[in-house]
């Protein structure tokens, strides 16, 4: 399995506020990696930096070995990297369907496993509301649109920030059940998840961030809860 995305000593933050201190992380083809950590640990910041929404040094982020750090977001996503941002961030003046269609805009080249129908198949409720303004959807429904929108670009790497946030268990279940299917056809997934158990169950490997540093990483199956709790809060909780 060759490496898709990797960060090397990634630093980043907001203006003079530094949130990341030398993070090393890698995602290989077709694997599911979980990124866990307490609130404010820097998970979202990491994702934003990788996708080019926040500045970085070129060599700090590589895509298949190519340095892409600090490149424009609109370029990076063209490479086949999609982000489901924290808090959905749908386009309020577009209908649900238009939101999804826009997602397809990022990709012009790659195979089209994901298109409107397949997304509607994954989230049937969206089909009913396809014509509605996305603002009129419930929190959960909006999350579905956000995911669908990301899928529409048929990314090689799907990055999800706080997927299960505000989702009913049944929906969370549906989504995570869909994961293996996604990975099957070679798509890698990097998920930020607060529910550690869930995160470990669906992922092969995990990284735990603590105050902007990787405090623990490894195979999801092997790590002990004690270690993780420790990595989470610095001291054993």
């Amino acid at each position, binding site marked *: 399995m060759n490496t898709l995305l990797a960060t090397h000593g990634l630093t980043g933050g*907001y*203006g003079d506020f530094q949130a990341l201190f030398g993070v090393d992380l890698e995602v290989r083809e077709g694997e599911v990696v979980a990124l866990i950590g307490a609130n404010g640990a820097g998970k*979202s910041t990491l994702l*934003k930096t990788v996708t080019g*929404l*926040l500045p970085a040094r070129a060599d700090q982020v590589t895509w298949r070995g190519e340095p892409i750090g600090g490149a424009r977001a609109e370029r990076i996503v063209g490479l086949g990297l999609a982000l489901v*941002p*924290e*808090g*959905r*961030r*749908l386009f*309020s003046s577009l209908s649900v369907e238009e939101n999804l269609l826009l997602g397809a805009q990022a990709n012009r080249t790659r195979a089209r496993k994901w298109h409107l129908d397949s997304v509607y198949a994954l989230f049937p409720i969206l089909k009913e509301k396809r014509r509605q303004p996305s*603002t*009129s*959807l419930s*929190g959960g429904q*909006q999350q579905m649109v956000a995911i669908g929108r990301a899928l529409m670009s048929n990314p090689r790497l799907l990055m999800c920030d706080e997927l299960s946030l505000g989702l009913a268990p049944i929906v969370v279940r549906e989504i995570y059940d869909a994961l293996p299917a996604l990975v099957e056809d070679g798509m890698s997934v990097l998920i930020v998840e607060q529910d550690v158990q869930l995160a470990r169950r669906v992922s092969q490997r995990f990284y735990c961030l603590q105050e902007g540093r990787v405090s623990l990483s490894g195979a999801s199956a092997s790590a002990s809860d004690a270690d993780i709790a420790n990595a989470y809060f610095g001291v054993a909780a």
Partner: protein
Amino acid sequence: MDAVRPRFEVRRATRASRIASLVLIALAVVVASMPFWAGRDALRDFIEIASYFVFAMMWNLLAGYGGMVSIGQQAYFGLGGYLMLALANFAGLSPFVCVPIAAVLTAIIAVPVSRIAFRLSGGYFAVGTWVIAEVFRLGIANISALGGGSGTSLTGLGDIARSTRESITLWLALAIVVLATALVYRFLRSKAGLALTAIRDDAVAASSQGVHVAGTRLVVYLCAAAGAGLAGALYFVGNLRISPDAAFSVNWTAFAIFIVMIGGLGTLEGPIVGTLLFYVLNKFLSDYGTLYLIGLGLLAIVVTLFFPQGLWGYVSRRFGLQFFPVGRRLVMLEPGAPNDASAQVPLQPALQPISQPTSPPTSQSPSQSSPLPRTR
């Protein structure tokens, strides 16, 4: 409550502010004595500065604090002027007496107007208010008793001795400046001022926290109208001749916007700094006509693009200066209490996107609480 209450204090005044208040009082005294030592031109300059300043400050109250960005304040400037003039010319009152009366009447007229204006928000509000001003301009232009489109002159002052007239006008101007500033300052420090900022950030959330949004907005709008009326009445007492195009010219608001933006939006110091600067420019460069105006326009653009917080905003962030602090800082007193005065964000917020006065209640768009940095 069960928990032992920690000791704390809430800091509002700063050292600078205490000094400033003294300085200002001294200044007022100096100005008051001007008729006895200063030249006639100085007197007139002050009167003009005063009306520009009061008008700008009121626009700042409306837009900078109230989040109601209007391009239509000239409506009240003009009304103030015309009401003063009409009272003086027809009712034969002394123009000086007419000034405050005109302001009150202006506010009264603003009540029904607000009902229309408040149907709008954001850009709509801005343009809508402008149109309303036009309605007043065209309306008055069709009243031949007021000279119609050609306007008319203030006759009441002819028979007052020149020096008396000038000193009284000056004192009137001074009184207006001091009063207006004091009132606005007190208002902003009050819990109503607190509500105002909250509304500006998120009206829906504010109302669910018990803030009477519509009420607060109305109060601000009326204050601003009255203030603009004062400024207008004062200006035309000094200028003697009024015409609809001049009185209701959008340039008044344009100048107010420049003044406030250059000085610093959403600060009380801003308009002061802005007015002085604007006035100096106007005095010494305005003879360059077009070139001067081109320069003014460019200045406004540059400042907005590169110093969105305005000159004062820039200074006060740089040196943490504040002459009129309205913010509150909580300071924990018992030792060891985490007191992140170190992690201070400056009390004075930079000019950030003012959330539009009303946003749909169930809108889940996290626009105003987005963790993503806004690209500038």
